């Protein structure tokens, strides 16, 4: 196997050209240059003074930039060369599911039949969009085992907060004021932050020595003031919560609800459904599980699906199929209201539907199977180099630890992650989950080949060897990237968020 390795991932280092600093758009600006071209309209050229009363006029000209189209293209193309991306190579960032983004789905979203439709146009003129949205809702419910969904939340964290507001609305409707939400200590940071905004208090549940929720401690924390629990399953250690049925029963017994953080849904597509595990509310990150491109940090989409008893509280208005087969916007009876300025990140939703339909039920199941196969292969392949925090079968990601490298050679997990950039791979997620020392969380995803996984493993072995031979050099890695380690403390101490705050003299 090793001998045949074709390191697909390493090809990524080549496009990262240029170690010189790229000037800013403003440094490229020369008074008198321009790029824009507008339509000839024939509209009467009323003067600005006639259009705008004095009190409203800006006395100054707001400087944007003055560049030629050629300089604009050069600038942003060079910037793109200073950027790693899935299209360049493997991006094993744990918890982020950076799989290949099919180009077909982008083409679907570029269709003028979808992307030139105004969101405020009457439903009668946008029937295709409403049908698309109701179709996606049905697909997401089939995948998660839930009864209905809102497509409005713009990202996972927005979905979480929406889910918590649904929980609150449900309890309020039962005349039931509850105060606390339980969260395992391995949870994503967005969970506790959302809980606070949802008006609840966090109670943290410790993990046991197997990396799972400690059922006894969970039971001890339960009570009539518990609104619910937020769980991701598999959890952030990549491990399946095997006692999920017992957890669900215990929480339901005190009248609480179960919230499923869908960040790790990729692991269980077609294998197990949150609804069948007893969850009442589920958010999905379409930009993870359903491969919509992440755009350098968004847009995402975070639909929330619910069980039958929560349907009436869903955000609205909601695209709905009427009895006559047409579609309209309908507000659920006890709707919590809008959670997005319009109908959600529609273009992301369209891409996700295309992705789901290409795969079908059979294809989505293979996605989960191969994602889990890849993660386990990598975990096992690296057991001598970087052992897993919990060395048993994991799901779609594995949490490895660099604690031995740290103790023996003073090389930290961060140094390993940075050195990996020199090898042409993106780093794994570092220092998360917080409960694992020197954590390196790898999520290879199902779209990486065995050859790329092998190349990644060999790169990590080289790094481990460097830790023995020359640990000092590792602490200064990477050196072959567009910039080396940046001074984060300086950025925070002396904030320069704009060109105007910078000293360009």
């Amino acid at each position, binding site marked *: 196997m090793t001998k045949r390795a074709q390191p697909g991932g390493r090809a990524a280092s080549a496009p990262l050209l240029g170690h010189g600093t790229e000037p800013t758009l403003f440094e490229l600006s020369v008074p008198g240059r321009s790029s824009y071209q507008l339509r000839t309209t024939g509209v009467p050229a009323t003067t600005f003074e006639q259009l705008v009363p004095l009190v409203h006029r800006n006395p100054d000209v707001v400087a944007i930039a003055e560049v030629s189209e050629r300089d604009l293209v050069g600038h942003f193309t060079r910037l793109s060369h200073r950027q790693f991306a899935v299209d360049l190579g493997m991006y094993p960032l744990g918890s982020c599911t950076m799989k290949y983004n099919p180009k077909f789905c982008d083409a679907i979203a570029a269709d003028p039949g979808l992307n030139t439709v105004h969101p405020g146009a009457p439903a009668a003129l*946008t029937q295709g969009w409403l049908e698309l949205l109701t179709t996606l809702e049905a697909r997401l419910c089939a995948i998660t085992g839930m009864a209905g969904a809102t497509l409005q939340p713009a990202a996972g964290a927005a979905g979480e907060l929406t889910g918590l507001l649904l929980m609150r609305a449900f309890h309020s409707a039962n005349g039931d004021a509850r105060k606390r939400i339980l969260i395992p200590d391995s949870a*994503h940071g967005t969970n506790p932050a959302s809980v606070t905004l949802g*008006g609840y208090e966090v109670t943290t549940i410790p993990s046991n020595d197997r990396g799972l929720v400690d059922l006894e401690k969970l039971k001890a924390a339960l009570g009539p003031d518990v609104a619910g629990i937020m769980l991701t399953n598999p959890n952030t250690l990549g491990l399946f919560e095997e006692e999920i049925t017992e957890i669900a029963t215990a929480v339901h017994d005190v009248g609480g609800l179960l919230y499923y953080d869908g960040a790790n849904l990729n692991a269980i597509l077609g294998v197990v459904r949150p609804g069948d595990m007893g969850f009442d509310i589920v958010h999905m990150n379409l930009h993870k599980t359903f491969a919509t491109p992440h755009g350098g940090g968004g847009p*995402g989409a975070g639909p929330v699906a619910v069980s039958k008893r929560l349907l009436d509280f869903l955000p609205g208005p909601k695209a709905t199929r009427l009895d006559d087969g047409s579609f309209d916007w309908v507000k659920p009876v006890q709707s919590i209201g809008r959670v997005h300025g319009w109908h959600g990140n529609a273009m992301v939703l369209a891409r996700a539907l295309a992705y789901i339909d290409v795969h079908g039920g059979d294809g989505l199941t293979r996605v989960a199977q191969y994602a889990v196969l890849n993660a386990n292969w990598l975990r096992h392949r690296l057991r001598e180099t970087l052992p897993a925090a919990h060395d048993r079968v994991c799901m779609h990601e594995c949490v490895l630890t660099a604690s031995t490298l740290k103790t023996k050679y003073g090389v930290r997990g961060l140094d390993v992650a940075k050195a990996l*950039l020199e090898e042409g791979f993106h*780093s794994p997620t570092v220092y998360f989950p917080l409960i694992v020392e020197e954590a390196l969380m790898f999520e290879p995803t199902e779209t990486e080949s065995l050859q790329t996984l092998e190349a990644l493993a060999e790169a990590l072995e080289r790094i481990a060897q460097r830790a023995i031979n020359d640990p000092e050099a590792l602490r200064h890695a990477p050196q072959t990237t567009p910039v080396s380690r940046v001074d984060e403390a300086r950025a925070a101490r002396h904030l320069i968020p704009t060109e105007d705050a910078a000293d360009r003299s």
Partner: protein
Amino acid sequence: MADYLPHTPDEVGQMLSFLGMDSLEQLFAHIPAAVRVSQGLDLLEGMSEPDVAAVFRQYTSANLAQATEMTCFAGAGVYDHEVPAVVKMLAGRSEFVTAYTPYQPEVAQGVLQAIFEYQTLISRLSGLPIPNASLYDAATALVEALNMAHGANARQKMVISTGVHPHWRAVAKTFAIGTGHEIVEVGLKDGVTDWGSVDASNAAAIVAAYPNYLGVMEDMTSAKEMALAHDALFILGADPVAAGVLKTAGQWGADVFIGEGQPFGTPLAFGGPFLGLFACSNDQVRRLPGRIVGETVDSNQRRSFVTTLRAREQDIRREKATSNVCTNQTLMAVTAAIQLGWLGTFGLREVAIRCAQGAHYLHDELMKIDGVTTVSSQPFFREFAIRLTSNASSVLKSMADDGVLGGVAVAALTFGDDSSIAHDIENVLLVTVTERRTKEEIDRYVEVLRKAVGE
């Protein structure tokens, strides 16, 4: 078998045998059988891309309101602006499109520098020094601004003009369920906020829109004075295109600027993904929601960019974070930087003025039609509301038969009565004109509306 998986059957076998397994099923053996999917998902079989494309053609053909087919006069915060090939191509580069959040600055300088440039532009257009790296949309930017106000003075009362877009207000009300904020709406009189009608004592924030959602340019002096008198934050939602020529939020004395960035290079897109614009004064920097990019140097003293002030964020502060925002709308922010670079200083002014010229020309022509009256006598910028003698949604449908998307029915935005409109809200139509509309198209609008109202 249509999918994007590279594994050959032989490789699957090799990988399983490396793990000491003989079937994929063994990987899932530890999951309790009681909760397993036994019959497969209730979905169709996978289809090839061209087969899925054929299904999607059924959706697209049922969307009659395509701006390429139906001349668009609809606005309400979402505008049909020119987006040139150069912007589409640059913003569509897969290095920007398929990157993740820039957690590793050594290989993310492209996105980080583009955000820094975006932040600079938003700071200049808002007249405020501290921008962030984007939020989901204007509505969620309002929610974050209200949370910032609460963080600044620990008060709960949010005084919001109904000149603020109805959807933004609706979203603010939803999230107030969790935060416990009290939302107090202030009605409009003749299209202008009736600040005198409200008790602003103990207010956390005073919120207004400029121009307001009906297109009216309100003098913001009284809103600012009210904020000062009660030591509340002044939050101003402003049209970023108009910001090229009108007074900036900073010039009106706002502490926080919010806005919808869709007009900067993002298509109508059925409402998303859009771009939540946000900037604030120096006093509020520690309460800033979401990410911010700062300039620094690398270990070789080269200029570099990095996400900074990270100690505010959810992954570090957890339940004490200033916001739960993680994923934002980076690609739209990068697109905005490119679009603004293309427009430049004078292009943005030109677009703003052309929009206003077109809107005023259409407005004046419409006022000549019997049964069409204005909702506000106050100066408007690029959008205006008209009152018809019948239901605006019905009029829109009949105009659509003649190939014109005549605007947005205000009642469809408010889902019922709203104190922004004194009476008969169902007859009110919001109309906008962008720099893409020709005189011929505007004249046709007049003719089609005349026909629709039966004059």
